[in-house]
């Protein structure tokens, strides 16, 4: 078989980075909504963005950002971790209990992180070795960890009074409007983003979520990466637990209960798809900031706080629906463009 025609290659400038651009748009869109919302609130209530107001906004977002970034790593690999709320609760209490007994604050944080990583390891082993759906396993560990937490704590609670003042100060103070906690969260955020972007193993998280079969064929150590994602997620939930203690100084057996839903909302609103392989942790951080800001905005413009939950839920629905519609559009455009270039090439 020989051919008589040399195909004419046409440049396809428009398809260049189309998806990239859509994804960037996604982060910009959250940012725009956030800025618009804050600006409108500021106009309505000029005290809103005072130094203390900004500090509160950032402080409120800190803990959610940390947990959501960890969750994002798991979701990027096409899994999910519903046990983060329970892990946050139990690590916060563990750190508090340690401090109450006169422990070193830094060691307390390390302890919380290690404990969280341990629970992450448990989840990761069940998911990667047991080959059980992540949702079910982590629903189970959600119960188990919460139960252990409750048995251990009983009716005790940790209060700010028993904690070292340095630790509590760390949770409240900062460089003018910038709380220490937010600085710490931002550092973690940047580190994770850098890792996911610039390391082979980070890129493999995306590969794994994008197509598990192709990842296996490309020699990606699938189980080890899933395990790593869960351990990181657990460790970050543990860190968030320690910071929760520093911020609120108050932990009981109900701490972090139901938090997994907020975390998943932040991740999805932030543009990390449930189907894995896409999204960025910066988007997730913006999503977390948006969700926590709504909680501050509503009261300050005089809307009753009973609206908060409904708005959170609807926001999540809107985010996934818009993502889906955009994805369908993009797929349609790409399909048409592929057909056009094909006929241009050979026509």
């Amino acid at each position, binding site marked *: 078989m020989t051919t008589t025609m040399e195909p004419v290659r046409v440049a396809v400038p428009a398809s260049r980075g189309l998806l990239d651009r859509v994804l960037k748009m996604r982060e910009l869109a959250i940012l725009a909504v956030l800025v618009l919302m804050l600006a409108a609130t500021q106009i309505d209530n000029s005290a809103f963005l005072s130094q203390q107001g900004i500090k509160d906004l950032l402080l409120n977002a800190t803990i959610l950002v940390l947990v959501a970034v960890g969750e994002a790593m798991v979701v990027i690999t096409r899994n*999910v971790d519903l046990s983060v709320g329970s892990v946050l609760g139990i690590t916060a209490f563990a750190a508090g209990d340690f401090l109450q007994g006169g422990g070193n604050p830094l060691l307390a944080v390390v302890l919380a992180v290690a404990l969280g990583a341990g629970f992450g390891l448990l989840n990761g082993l*069940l998911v990667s070795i*047991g*080959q*059980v*759906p992540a*949702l*079910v*396993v982590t*629903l*189970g*560990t*959600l*119960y*188990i*960890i*919460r*139960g*252990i937490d*409750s*048995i251990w704590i009983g009716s005790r609670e940790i209060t700010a009074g028993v904690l070292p003042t340095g630790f509590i100060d760390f949770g409240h103070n900062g460089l003018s409007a910038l709380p220490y906690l937010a600085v710490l969260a931002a550092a973690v955020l940047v580190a994770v983003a850098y890792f996911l972007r610039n390391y082979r193993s980070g890129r493999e998280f995306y590969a794994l979520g994008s197509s598990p079969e192709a990842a296996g064929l490309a020699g990606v150590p699938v189980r080890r990466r899933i395990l790593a994602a869960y351990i990181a997620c657990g460790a970050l939930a543990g860190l968030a637990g320690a910071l929760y203690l520093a911020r609120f100084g108050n932990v009981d*057996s109900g701490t972090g209960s*139901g938090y997994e*839903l907020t975390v*998943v*909302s932040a991740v*999805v609103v932030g543009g990390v798809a*449930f*189907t894995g392989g896409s999204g960025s942790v910066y988007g997730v951080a913006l999503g977390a900031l948006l969700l926590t800001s709504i909680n501050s905005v509503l009261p300050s413009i005089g809307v009753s706080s*009973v*609206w*908060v*939950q*409904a*708005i*959170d*839920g*609807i926001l*999540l*629905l809107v985010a*996934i*629906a818009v993502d*889906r*519609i955009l994805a369908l559009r993009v797929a349609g455009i790409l399909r048409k463009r592929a057909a056009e270039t094909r006929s241009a090439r050979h026509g």
Partner: protein
Amino acid sequence: MADTTAPFTARLRSARLGDMVRWDTVVGALLLVLLVCSFSFVDNFGNALNLSFLIGNTLPIALIALPMTLLVVSGEIDLSVGSTAGLSGAVMGALWNAGYPIETIIPICLLLGVVCGLVNGLLVTRLGLPSLAVTIGTLAAYRGIAQIVLGANSVTDFPQQYLDFGSGRIAGTFIPYAAIPWAVLLVLAAVVLHATPVGRSLFAVGASEEAARFSGVRVKRLKLSMFVATGFVSALTGVFWALHYASARYDNATGLELSVVAAVLLGGIDFDGGRGTLGGAVAGVFLLGALQNVMSLVNVSAQSQIVVTGVLLVVSVLGPRVARQLSVARARRRTLTAPVVPAAATAPAGGT
């Protein structure tokens, strides 16, 4: 064909063994053992009051588990059931406060449930969104709306005859009145799942949505109707909840979705769809319910009960999978050691 019988019989034997140790049978047996032991050894378990408590407290889960089983078999999930029940109760309370007759309110609540299910179903089937994400969203949204509707109030002054129905027992027995509509729904769900074209299609869709679509199954319509059924029964449960506990609050039935999902999965309904029996799901529901009841009677703390629920859930998904992998490995060993003549080699002879 004669020389191919060895591997065939080997396969048959393992298949029959597999039939005998089906997970739903295991759960049923466990329930039976638990009941027998409890009747024999646990004080106060067998008295009518305790049994009616057991059933009454388990009924909300048992109700929602029926449509949830069908939904999970079709490969979807609904996490908003607790919120739908809460919303239904909140609207019931709000309308009652506004002076509507209860005969009008209950149909409105049920209709509301249908709408809730419709919203879930349309988002899943029309936009192709994962049901997990959608119903986590509506879980928050419906509960939020319930909060907006009723605020922090609680409504308790429903008509006495309805409250009696919600908490009363059939004269002379330990069976609550509300168990009667549940039994009717149970029969209906069992027939639909195991003996109708709809049920056959549900299993096909759950096992392979694409193959089902290629076989002419109207996948979207089927899934939509299952979401609607789930919404309807959830709203019904919300009404029952408010009457049973004589209190309509926005936070009624919070977290119920986790209990329902745990019970259904424990009953052997495969989370990936396409596998399970309604009997297994019901056994799962009552195993959890009875276990909690017994643990309370023998003074195990509520917290330890949570741990037990979680462990059971993990074991229930891990167990069947490990068992299946073991049996596959066993079958492979047998095939390898058996003198094998490939089936393909005999095919031309049969064909020509």
